[in-house]
């Protein structure tokens, strides 16, 4: 439905997008994830024909948009709607705002009334029609902006960081709404976020955008557990990124030497290959001082050098010859009576480890 072929976008001297290619299918929720300034917004703006690419081809519904005349562009744009990161209220009531797109399409007043109240109902703001749009809270305005965008029943909905400025309750409402719009009404949704977990909750497929390039495209599972390079891994919350060398390899189960520590991991690389080992912090378990056997393949002992509470969880850094960061629940941390400076055993399964050749680093 939407295809980018080696699209380049420069704003003045600044290269914002560097030859990016991807293809979005009809009816899916496609998410661009990346740190701010990575080019996500620019991608959405290009799809909505608000900017013209410096180079490359963009196809929407099979039509190359570069050759479109201004009038055809408006027609093309009328199949989509974009909600901006900080939606701006236009002058007038909430209803006036929501009706704007329909008015542009010269819908008659009855149709406008019906579709406007429908759209407000979908976002749960049925009662808000008469209010002044200029005095809404952030979450309300975000929902009005979505109502405004869906009132025209677009095929494609573009959402730029739809929950970046919202509280958790509003965020949940918006996320549920996004899922409903997609599943129930079949709208193709393209959204950008810097929140990997939100990407996981919403997206059928994720494209990780880093510094104007697409690092990886895949399902959230693929990106969480099989990141293709260091930058994607960092974005996906893989906190343990260790460099080592394959010491032995027995039929796909390799022993990796990291700073003198041996770790078992599935890998096809022959001995001597310099590799990078990725391990998610949630995949590390602790078993205190008395090392009761676990089913994990890798068990090493180290000293706790850093403890940072994060809500109900604790991020614990252990120096075991290599530095490993783990995230466990506050409760298990207490149950194991662990503390800063204490010695502990840590374990992780071989299957939790993702091994890539060092040459693949970008």
């Amino acid at each position, binding site marked *: 439905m939407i295809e980018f072929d080696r699209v380049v976008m420069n704003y003045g001297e600044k290269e914002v997008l560097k030859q990016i290619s991807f293809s979005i299918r009809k009816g899916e929720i496609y998410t661009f994830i990346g740190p701010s300034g990575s080019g996500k917004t620019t991608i959405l*703006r290009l799809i*909505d024909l*608000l900017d013209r690419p410096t180079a490359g081809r963009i196809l929407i519904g099979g039509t190359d948009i570069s050759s479109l005349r*201004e*009038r055809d562009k*408006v027609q093309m*744009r*009328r199949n*989509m*709607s*974009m909600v*901006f990161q*900080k*939606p*701006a209220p*236009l*002058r007038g009531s909430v209803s006036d705002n929501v009706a*704007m*797109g329909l008015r*542009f*399409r010269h819908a008659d007043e009855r149709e406008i009334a019906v579709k406007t109240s429908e759209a407000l109902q979908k976002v749960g703001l049925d009662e808000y029609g008469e209010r002044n749009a200029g005095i809404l809270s952030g979450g309300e305005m975000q929902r009005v*902006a979505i109502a*405004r*965008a869906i009132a*025209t029943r677009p095929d494609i909905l*573009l959402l730029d960081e739809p929950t970046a400025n919202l509280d958790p309750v509003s965020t949940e409402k918006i996320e549920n709404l996004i899922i409903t719009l997609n599943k129930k009404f079949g709208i193709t949704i393209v959204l950008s976020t810097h929140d990997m977990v939100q990407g996981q909750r919403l997206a059928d497929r994720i494209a990780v955008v880093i510094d104007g390039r697409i690092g990886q495209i895949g399902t959230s599972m693929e990106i969480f557990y099989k990141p293709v390079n260091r930058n994607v891994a960092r974005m996906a919350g893989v906190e343990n990124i260790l460099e080592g060398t394959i010491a032995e390899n027995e039929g796909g189960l390799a022993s990796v030497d990291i700073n003198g520590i041996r770790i078992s991991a599935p890998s096809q690389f022959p001995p001597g290959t310099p590799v990078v080992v990725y391990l998610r912090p949630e995949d590390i378990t602790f078993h205190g001082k008395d090392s009761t056997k676990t089913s994990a393949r890798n068990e090493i002992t180290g000293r706790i050098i850093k403890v940072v509470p994060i809500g109900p969880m604790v991020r614990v850094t252990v120096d075991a010859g290599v530095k490993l960061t783990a995230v466990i629940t506050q409760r298990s941390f207490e149950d194991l009576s662990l503390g800063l400076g204490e010695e502990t055993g840590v374990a992780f399964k071989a299957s939790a480890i993702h091994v890539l050749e060092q040459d693949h680093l970008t």
Partner: protein
Amino acid sequence: MNEIAEGITQAVQLIISLDEEVLAITARSLLISLSATLVASLIAIPVGGFIHFREFGGKRGLITIIQTLYALPTVLAGLLVFLLLSRSGPFGFLGLMFTPTGMIIAQIVLIIPLMIGMTLIALSGVSRIKQDTILSLGGTEMQTVITIIREARFAILGGVILGFGRAISEVGAAMMIGGNIRGYTRVLTTAIALETSMGNLSLSIALGIILLAIAMLVTGGLFLIQER
């Protein structure tokens, strides 16, 4: 000193007694300048809208020229319109020299750059996001320009008031094109100039007070609208 006090007293009398000539001059001033402002608005606001919205080569240069013309001397505007409307000029056949219509044209020429400029400033106050939202909602170029003008309407109205202020207070073009013909093209400013040169100070002061009162009413009115 005595002269001034006397003048003011007489002026107040002229105003209170609704002196026919004073009323006629005031009405003519208002009619000419309001007409000029209305026509200039109808031209300047859409033109400003499209200059703001469209990207084209020389846009920056054009804006600089428009800004320079804010300071267009009234006599130059008068001269330009004189060259166009005088008997030997390209539009001489219309016979608009020394008519109120000619004065309206001169005032339009005078205030259009200012009003386009003020429209541009007003529209640049409309956030980029708003403009993109309007486009994204499927607005055509025309619909988008109209909508952003509506978003900035109070600021644009400020520019209109400024244009009106310049039109009603200028004397050079009105004198050159209108000719200060009594009962026909004589307006507040030309009347003040004439009466003062004739030493008829009380009438000048009366007209001056009226001119200021009009300015106050107009700006006050704008204030009320903006407050709402």
